[in-house]
C-alpha cells in the first residue's frame, strides 16, 4: 500500500528536544505517525510533550520501544554519528533530515549502514510521507492525499509543488519520497523506483531530478529495462549555467555528465513521459494511466 513506511511504522526521533526536532515531532504526531520515543543525550527519562519517552541513547530507545524507524534532526557535525548509532542499534530505516553534513563523513557512514543491513534516506532530505498513514520528516501533510502515484525527488519544496498540483488535480499519492540533494545519499532514485514497481498500490511514478551527476540517467536505464509501470520525469536546472553549484551540492553541471539535455534524452530513450513544467506532471501521468 506504500513504500518504506506505513501506519505500522514505529518511529523514534533523534534530536527530539532540539528546535527543529521538537517542532516536527509535534507535526508528525498530529499527522498520525506512531512516534514511540526520542533520543537526546543527557535528557533520558524526560517526557516530550508529556507523553513521548526520551532516552539517552538509540540502543536504549530501541530496546524499550522496539522502534523500526528513526528520523534524525541533529546538527550537521553530529549527523554522521547519529546515523551510525541508529544503524548499530538495529534500526532498519533511518531518515536523516539534517542539511550540511560533511561529505567525507558520509563516505564512512554509507558502508557502515550497508553492513548493518539498514536503509538510510538522506541526508539533506525532507523525508517521506505515506498520505493518510504516516509521515517521517518535514513534508507538509495537508498538501498530500492518499492515492496511487509514487513520487520521488531530489529536492524539498519542488516536491511540495508537484504534490500540491497532483492533489489539486485529484491525483493522490501512494508514498512521496525526498531522497535529498547531497552528492552522497543513502537511498537512490533506483531504490525508490524498484520499491514503487513492487508496490501493488502504486500505479505510476513521478520523478523529479536535477542537473548534476548521472543518477537520473541510471534511473532512466532502470525504468527502461526493469519497470512496467509508467514513469514521468522532470529535471530542474535546465537553464542553469555550467560549473556553478545551485544550492544543492549535487546540482552542478560539470563536463558532459549532468546536463539537463542529457538527462531528458535518457528519459526519452527509456520511454518515460517528460514534464517540462511542474504542472505538466498531471497531464503526462493521466495520459499514461
Amino acid at each position, binding site marked *: 500500500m506504500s513504500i518504506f513506511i506505513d501506519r505500522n511504522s514505529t518511529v523514534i526521533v533523534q534530536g527530539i528536544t532540539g528546535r527543529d526536532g521538537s517542532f516536527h515531532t509535534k507535526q508528525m504526531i498530529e499527522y498520525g505517525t506512531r512516534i514511540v520515543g526520542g533520543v537526546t543525550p543527557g535528557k533520558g527519562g524526560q517526557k516530550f510533550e508529556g507523553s513521548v519517552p526520551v532516552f539517552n541513547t538509540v540502543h536504549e530507545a530501541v530496546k524499550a520501544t522496539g522502534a523500526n524507524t528513526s528520523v534524525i534532526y541533529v546538527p550537521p557535525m553530529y549527523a554522521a554519528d547519529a546515523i551510525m548509532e541508529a544503524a548499530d542499534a538495529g534500526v532498519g530505516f533511518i531518515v536523516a533530515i539534517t542539511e550540511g553534513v560533511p561529505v567525507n563523513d558520509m563516505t564512512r557512514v554509507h558502508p557502515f549502514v550497508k553492513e548493518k543491513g539498514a536503509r538510510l534516506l538522506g541526508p539533506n532530505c525532507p523525508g517521506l510521507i505515506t498520505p493518510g498513514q504516516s509521515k517521517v520528516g518535514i513534508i507538509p501533510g495537508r498538501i498530500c492525499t492518499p492515492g496511487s502515484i509514487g513520487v520521488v525527488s531530489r529536492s524539498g519544496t519542488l516536491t511540495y509543488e508537484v504534490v500540491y498540483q497532483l492533489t489539486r488535480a485529484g491525483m493522490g499519492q501512494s508514498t512521496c519520497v525526498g531522497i535529498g540533494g547531497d552528492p552522497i545519499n543513502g537511498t537512490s532514485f533506483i531504490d525508490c523506483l524498484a520499491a514503487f514497481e513492487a508496490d501493488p498500490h502504486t500505479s505510476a511514478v513521478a520523478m523529479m531530478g536535477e542537473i548534476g551527476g548521472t543518477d537520473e540517467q541510471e534511473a532512466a536505464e532502470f525504468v527502461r529495462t526493469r519497470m512496467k509501470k509508467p514513469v514521468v520525469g522532470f529535471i530542474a536546472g535546465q537553464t542553469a549555467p555550467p560549473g556553478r553549484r545551485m544550492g544543492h551540492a549535487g*546540482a*552542478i553541471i560539470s563536463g558532459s555528465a549532468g546536463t539537463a539535455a542529457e538527462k531528458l534524452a535518457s528519459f526519452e530513450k527509456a520511454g518515460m513521459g517528460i514534464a517540462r513544467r511542474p504542472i505538466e506532471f498531471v497531464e503526462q501521468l493521466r495520459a499514461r494511466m
Partner: protein
Amino acid sequence: MDHQSGEGVNIHEFQAKELLRAEGVPIPPGDVATTAEQAEAIARKIGGMVVVKAQVHTGGRGKAGGVKLAKTASEAGQIAAKILGMQINGLTVHQVLVTAAADIASEAYVGIILDRASRKPVFMVSPAGGIDIEEVAAKTPEKIMKLPIDTRYGLQPYQASELGFFLFPDDVKKVRAASRIMMSLYQAFMKHDASLAEINPLVVTPAGEVLALDAKISIDDNALDRHPDLVKLRDETAEEPSEVDARNSSLTFIKLDGNVGCVVNGAGLAMATMDLVKYYGGEPANFLDIGGSSNPEKVVNALRIITGDPSVKVILFNIFGGITRTDDVANGIVTATKANPLRIPIVIRLTGTNEEIAMKILKDNGFSASSDMDEAVQQAVALATKGGKAA
C-alpha cells in the same frame, strides 16, 4: 565518473601547496607576492630560474599569459608587474606565486575526487600529466587508473604502490616516491575535508626527483564549521561581490544575465522557477535560495541584493511554505519595501504554511499575491519584457 571539481571552496595554488607541503609533499620553494618588488625579492631569495604564476580561480592561466618563466630576479619583477592586474577569464589577478623552476623529464597526474557513484573518494592517476584530465578521460581512458578508497581504512600502502606502478611501471624508486606523495595527498584530502585534491603535473626531474609543480584543492563547504583556519583562505576578491554579500547573509545566490530577479525557497524549486521564467520567454537575473528557515531578515537581505542589480526589471517571489512560514516572508517583504520603496514591480506567489495570514499581511500593505506558480511567472515575464512600472 562524475567529476565534482568546482564544488566547494576553491583555494589558491599557493595555499593548496602550503597544505600539501605540511603533509610532506615535495614542492619547489616559493612564496606569494602582491607587488613586483615583493616578487623580485622572492625570486632573489630562491636564486636561479623562477616561474611567476597568477593566482586566480580559473583554468587556462598559462594560455592567458598568466604563467611565465623568469631567468633573473629583476626579470621576475618585470613579469610580475605585467601579470598583476591582468584579467584572466574575467577575474583580476591580485597575487602571483613566485616559485623555483624545475627541469622536467616527464609529467603525470595524481588526483582525488569525490565520486557520487561509488560514494567514495576516488584516486585518479595518469602518466599523461600536465594537461586537462577530463580530456584524457574522454580520449584515452586506458591511460587513467581509478581506485575508490574506503575512508574507514584510508589509503593503504599497497594501494598507493599499485597506483605508483601504473605511473612508473619500470622504476621502483620513482614508484616509492610517488606512493609517498599519494599517501600525503590522501592525508591532506581527509584532514581538510576536501572534495577535490590534485597534483597536476607531478613531475620527474632529469635527476629522478618526483615533485608536485601545481596543486589544486577544493574544500567541502559543509565542513567549514570545523575548519576555521580554511575559512580564512577564502579569497573574496576573487568572487562576484553580490555573491559574497549573499553568502554573508546566509543566502545562496548566483548572478545570471537576465532581468527577472527571483527569490525562492529551496534549491530545486529555485531552479524550476528559473526554468519556468525561461519557458515563458523571460531571462532569470539570478538563482536565489532563501533556504528553509523563515526569517524576515533573510527576505530583507534578498531584496537588497536583487534590487542592487540595475539590470533587474521585475522581482518574482516564489515561496512554497513547508518549514518556511509564508507570513514571515510576507512580513519581510513589507519591512524591506517600507525601508526602501521599490522602483520596479514585484510579483508574489505564496502558498503553504500560514498562507491566509501571509495573504492578509500583503493585502493590507497594498500588495497582491497569487498562489499559482505558472500564473506568477507569466506575469513577471510580461512585466520584465515591457518594463512595466506598477507594483
